[in-house]
């Protein structure tokens, strides 16, 4: 049977891996090829690159980075950040990405997801959903979709939006809890479970991992098919291999 996937996420700014807390205090964390190679050697099942470069003028740098990594790393590579058109999708796929992640532009134009999926296959279209709890205390849980790095509210209900995106052709969903991102307090498993039960495509959990039990809970309680984490791997708290051993010890089916 299929293994659950462990996915390190790398933030890329002008061709370098950077790390920071909630887009602040961004520090250089190395050469993308070196970092990708390290995670590959540790047994990462996939890699996600998020381009956080502000300027579109720096876009060619991203393509060069993707090309350099894809020519050396033989595991799937997803690239997101600023994907706005089929031309962007094609450029990233030609540079060597296996999947592209679409976020803000899916909200602005849901048909873009359909168009990209029809043209390049739904298996390479990941829709990223940034969700925030908006219910008042004692109300049933409710989450709203935010865009622009969590700054802009959309008025969309996250569960309904997830269903819409799958209907529109998303092959996979990457769900980030804005409340948990950077907190190291674990995924929002209630959010994950609600989405996982509502859609038929694989779900990647994101936002909030501080220890290995959080990864387990994302799979066991959240029902995710893959778990994404950044800082626990970048800061060297755990290797991907340690994470996999931990999960395997808990009875999760893992590629070791």
């Amino acid at each position, binding site marked *: 049977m*299929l293994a659950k996937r462990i996915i390190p996420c790398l933030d890329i700014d002008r061709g370098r891996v950077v790390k920071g807390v909630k887009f602040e205090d961004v520090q250089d964390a190395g050469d993308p090829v070196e970092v990708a190679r390290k995670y590959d050697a540790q047994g990462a099942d996939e890699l996600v690159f998020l381009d956080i470069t502000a300027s579109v003028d720096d876009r060619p740098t991203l393509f060069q980075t993707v090309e350099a990594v894809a020519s050396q790393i033989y595991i799937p590579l997803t690239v997101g950040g600023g994907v706005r058109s089929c031309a962007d999708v094609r450029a990233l796929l030609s540079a060597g990405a296996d999947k592209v992640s679409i976020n803000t532009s899916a909200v602005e134009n849901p048909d873009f997801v359909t168009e990209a999926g029809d043209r390049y296959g739904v298996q390479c279209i990941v829709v990223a959903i940034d969700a925030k709890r908006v219910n008042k205390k004692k109300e049933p849980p409710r989450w709203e979709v935010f865009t622009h790095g969590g700054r802009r509210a959309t008025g969309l209900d996250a569960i309904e939006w997830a269903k819409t995106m799958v209907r529109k052709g998303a092959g996979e969903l990457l769900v980030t809890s804005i409340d948990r991102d950077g907190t190291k307090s674990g995924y929002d498993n209630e959010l994950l479970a609600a989405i996982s039960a509502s859609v038929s*495509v694989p779900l990647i959990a994101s936002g909030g991992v501080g220890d290995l039990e959080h990864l387990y809970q994302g799979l066991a309680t959240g029902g995710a098919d893959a778990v994404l984490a950044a800082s626990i791997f970048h800061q060297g708290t755990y290797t991907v291999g340690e994470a996999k051993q931990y999960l395997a010890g808990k009875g999760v089916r893992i590629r070791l």
Partner: protein
Amino acid sequence: MASVGIIDYGMGNLHSLGKALERVAGGTRVVTSYDPEVLLKCDRLVLPGVGGVRECMRELQRLELNQMVIEAARKKPMLGICLGMQVFLEWSDENGGVPALGLFPGKVTRFPDPPEDGGADRLKVPHMGWNRVHQTRAHPLWEGVPDDAWFYFVHSYHAEPACPDHVLGTSDYTKTFACALARDNLVAFQFHPEKSQNAGMTLLANFVQWDP
């Protein structure tokens, strides 16, 4: 100089396949082309593919590659990957049903959709991620690849070959399905060797060396 040709009919990402083949090619030249004449001069061919089968068959026909593939299949070592494997069969149920190349008897069918309210543990479609491949018989391409090794899959449809002798390997997802086929000078994988780290590199290296 020996050469391996990647059949480029405009669908999907050939970058990683090309790079992976170059890495294992040794003295073999890697050629990526949509020109039937260029491809027919190559010693061996790879038919990759992602996307939908209707578009795939349409593009193969438009570029006059379907006849080239059928002709090459009579004599050259040829490898089909993912959708490239699926079009080796006679028929695919995808896109309302599409006749394919017919190099292997049998058809391609969809995994059953998970129930809407089946909970988080139900098996989702596409089958996406790493799964084990069980080798059902010996073959030169399995040389150095451990049985039940992990390979990377992304697909919603799978082959149902009519001839059990053609099955080279199986995987389990909702059921046991054929994920590797072989006969004579043809071999086909549903998974992506170019995305399957060391085990995948070994398979590609074996294909480049294969002398059926």
